[in-house]
């Protein structure tokens, strides 16, 4: 057995061991079903919702929100990052306020977005885009800042035009760092979208979880939670695979 298979087996063992413990505790009556649903029941309810209910549609809404946020954050983030690098004084001036804004609990300002955009997906997209925007701006600016000047000198010595320099030297040099920014942005957007959907009770999967908890449908709460966690983990896994592929 290879080392990586052994590690995966251990990890799966821990996860399924914990789920088995919960299953036994619930089925054995040690924990009331009023508080906790058996994992198998939660999976069955999730499956039923996917096949017969509207879980698939809600997942689609969540994915649409995430994709919209990423598109907005990418377009404005890369442009702003490039601008902040190009104009050094402005770049230096805005670096600290941007970092401060990013580490402040801006998600608490969601009622402002609900007032502005109404209780719709637009409010989720508008606020979550900010979470994606800032890492892309910072990474884009950092990427351009850290381009090895020797590369540019080599380009200049080969009489490359400005467009050629940009296309053949700058873009390949900055792409990996900007991609790291996308990865970070996507992680923040995912968390923000799911969190806001749940708190503001709008949109997709998060709203389903919120609805279920208000209706006190315990099995559905755990099914929604299971779906949300699975979606988060699947996303991170795909991001990691993409990054791995991109770096190769």
């Amino acid at each position, binding site marked *: 057995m290879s080392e990586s298979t052994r590690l995966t087996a251990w990890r799966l063992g821990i996860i399924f061991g914990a789920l088995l413990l919960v299953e036994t505790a619930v089925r054995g009556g040690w924990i009331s079903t009023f508080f906790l649903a058996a994992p198998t029941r939660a999976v069955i309810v999730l499956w039923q919702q996917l096949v017969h209910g509207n879980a698939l549609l809600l997942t689609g809404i969540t994915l649409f929100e995430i994709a919209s946020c990423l598109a907005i954050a990418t377009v404005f983030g890369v442009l702003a990052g490039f601008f902040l690098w190009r104009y050094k*004084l402005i770049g230096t001036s805005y670096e*600290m306020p941007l970092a401060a804004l990013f580490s402040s*609990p801006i*998600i608490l300002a969601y009622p402002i977005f609900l007032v502005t955009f109404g209780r719709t997906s637009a409010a989720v997209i508008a606020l979550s885009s900010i979470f994606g925007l800032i890492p892309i701006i910072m990474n884009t600016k950092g990427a351009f800042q850290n381009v090895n000047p020797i590369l540019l000198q080599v380009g200049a010595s080969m009489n490359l035009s400005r467009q050629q320099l940009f296309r053949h030297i700058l873009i390949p040099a900055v792409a990996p760092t900007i991609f790291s920014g996308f990865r970070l942005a996507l992680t923040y957007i995912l968390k923000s979208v799911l969190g806001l959907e*749940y708190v503001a009770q709008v949109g997709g999967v998060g709203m389903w979880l919120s609805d279920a908890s208000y209706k006190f449908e315990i099995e559905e709460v755990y099914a929604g939670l299971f779906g949300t966690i699975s979606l*988060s983990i699947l996303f991170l896994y795909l991001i990691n695979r993409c990054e791995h592929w991109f770096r190769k």
Partner: protein
Amino acid sequence: MAHAQPNPSALAAKIHTPFGVQALTLLGLVAIWEFIGRSGLLFPELFPSIGEILQSLWIYVTTPVMLPHLKASLYEVGGAIAIAALSGIPLGILWGSKRSWLEIVEPLILYAAVVPKIVIFPVFILFLGIDVHSKLAVGAIAAFFPISLLTIAGMREVKKVYVDVARTIGASPVQIAKNVYLPAIAGQVFTGIRIGLGAAVTGALLAETKIAKAGLGFMIVEYYGQFRIADMYSLLLFIFILASLANWAMKSLFGVLSPVSRQSGDAGMYF
């Protein structure tokens, strides 16, 4: 008496600094805000005058109107950070002390860290009710991840040779933990606690906005429900100022306590 004439080039030089640009941006934003609010160009209710917001903020600072809510939120955040530190640091040390454990556990923690912690809130409501303890639990789980992950990162930085030297001179496991591991990981642990504090504030207050009886997050939603927009803005400002002050105080305190300065991280990742 001769009046000092403003020197245009000196003024331009002052503006041509990062501070000048920041001040100018702030002034510009205030002017745009006031213009939109007064002209009625775009939802005037959404743009109350800056004076009104500051007046409301002044009331929060000088009167006990927010005290019960502040107490509830401080209890939740304080409790959350205490639980997260008391569980995250020992577990981080335990996981980080053996390479084989770390290889198994670390990816699981990294994947779990990405899940928005607020979605576990319904489970905490079921077990702990809608009082402060369910918010405290959300804050604790949000703060647990940065603290444990940075403790693990600290453990990874401990050079094996230090542990070997301690062993060869006959130090006991407790002595090794106290005299080798703890001083070496202190910087990372402090950074973890500081980031954890931000995560706990966000987690607990966000949970308060969902279902609560008291707390600063609860008041934000109350004001939103009553459409008291100026009060809502000033409360948000109040929370941001408090969070920044707490972050700054922790940074200063840990800067004195920790022998090595560490890079700061952000809290958003972990809420």
